[in-house]
C-alpha cells in the first residue's frame, strides 16, 4: 500500500525528486534501474549464448545417445529373449523325442529280454523234467531189485527156519507164496 503513495509522487514530480526518494523503497528506486538493466542484459546475454551454443547441444546429444542406446539394448534384449524361447522350444521337442525313443528302446529291450528268459526257462524246465523222470525210473528199478533181493532173502530165511524148526525141507513154492503174501500184506 505504501508503495503506491511512493509511486505517485515519483511519477508526477519527475526524475529530480526520485534521486532523493532513492532510499525509501529499494525496488522502486528508479536510479538503480539503469545499472540493473545493464547487468541483466550482460549476464543474461552471456548465459543465453553459453546455453544455446555449448551447454544445451551437449546435454541434448548425451540424452539422445542414451535414449537410442537404451532402445537398442531393449530391442536386443527382446531379440535374445526370442532366441532363448526358440532354443527352449527346440530343446523341449528334442527332449520329448528322445524320451519317446528311450521309451521305445526300453520297451523293446524289455520284451527281448523276457523272451530270452522264457526260452531259457523252458529249456531248463524240460531238462529238469527229463532228469526227474530218469531219477524216478532209476528209483523204481532199484526198488524192484531191492524187493527181489528181499524176497530171495526172505525165502531163504524162511526155508532155513522151517528146516531148523521142522527138520524137514520146505516146499520152495509154498515158501515163496507165503513170502509174497506176507510182503504184500506188509507192503
Amino acid at each position, binding site marked *: 500500500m505504501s508503495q503506491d503513495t511512493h509511486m505517485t509522487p515519483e511519477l508526477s514530480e519527475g526524475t529530480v525528486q526520485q534521486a532523493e526518494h532513492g532510499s525509501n523503497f529499494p525496488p522502486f528506486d528508479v536510479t538503480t534501474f539503469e545499472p540493473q538493466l545493464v547487468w541483466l542484459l550482460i549476464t543474461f546475454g552471456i548465459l543465453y549464448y553459453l546455453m544455446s551454443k555449448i551447454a544445451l547441444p551437449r546435454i541434448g546429444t548425451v540424452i539422445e545417445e542414451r535414449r537410442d542406446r537404451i532402445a537398442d539394448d*531393449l530391442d536386443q534384449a*527382446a531379440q535374445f529373449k526370442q532366441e*532363448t*524361447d526358440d532354443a*527352449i522350444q527346440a530343446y*523341449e521337442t528334442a527332449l520329448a523325442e528322445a524320451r519317446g525313443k528311450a521309451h521305445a528302446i526300453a520297451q523293446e529291450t524289455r520284451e527281448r529280454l523276457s523272451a530270452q528268459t522264457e526260452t531259457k526257462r523252458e529249456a531248463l524246465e524240460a531238462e529238469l523234467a527229463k532228469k526227474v523222470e530218469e531219477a524216478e525210473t532209476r528209483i523204481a528199478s532199484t526198488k524192484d531189485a531191492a524187493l527181489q533181493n528181499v524176497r530171495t532173502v526172505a525165502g531163504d530165511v524162511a526155508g532155513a527156519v522151517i528146516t531148523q524148526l521142522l527138520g524137514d525141507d520146505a516146499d520152495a513154492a509154498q515158501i515163496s507164496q507165503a513170502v509174497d503174501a506176507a510182503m504184500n500184506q506188509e507192503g
Partner: protein
Amino acid sequence: MADNSDETSQSTRLTQGEVGALSDLEKRIHTAQRERHKTDLAESQKRNTDMGVGLRLSTEFIAGIIAGTGLGWLLDYWLGTTPLFLILGLGLGFAAAIMNVLRVTKNMGTSSVQTDDTKTDDTAGNTPGATE
C-alpha cells in the same frame, strides 16, 4: 520303471522353473519398453497440472487493471485530457482483468479434462489448483 518317470518329471520341473524366469524376463523387457514410451507421455501429463495457475488469478486481475489504467494515463499524458482516458482505461482494465481471470479458469478446466482422460492421479493434483 519308477526310476524312469522320476527322471522325466525332474527334467520338466527344471525347465518349468527356467520358463518362469524367462516369462518374468519377458515381462520386464516389455514394461521397460512400455515405460520408455510412457515417459514422454505420462511425465508430460503430470507436468500439465498447472500448479502455478491458482497463483495467477490475483496477479492477472491486478495486471489487467494496471494495464488498462496505465494505457489511459498515457493517452491522457499525450492528449492532455487528464481524467478522461484514465477513467475509461480503468473501466476497460477492469473488464480485461475479469477476462484474464476467466481465461485462466477456463484453461484450468480444459487442462483438468485432458488429464482426466489419461490419469486419475492428475485430477487430484489439479483440484487444489482449481479451488484456489
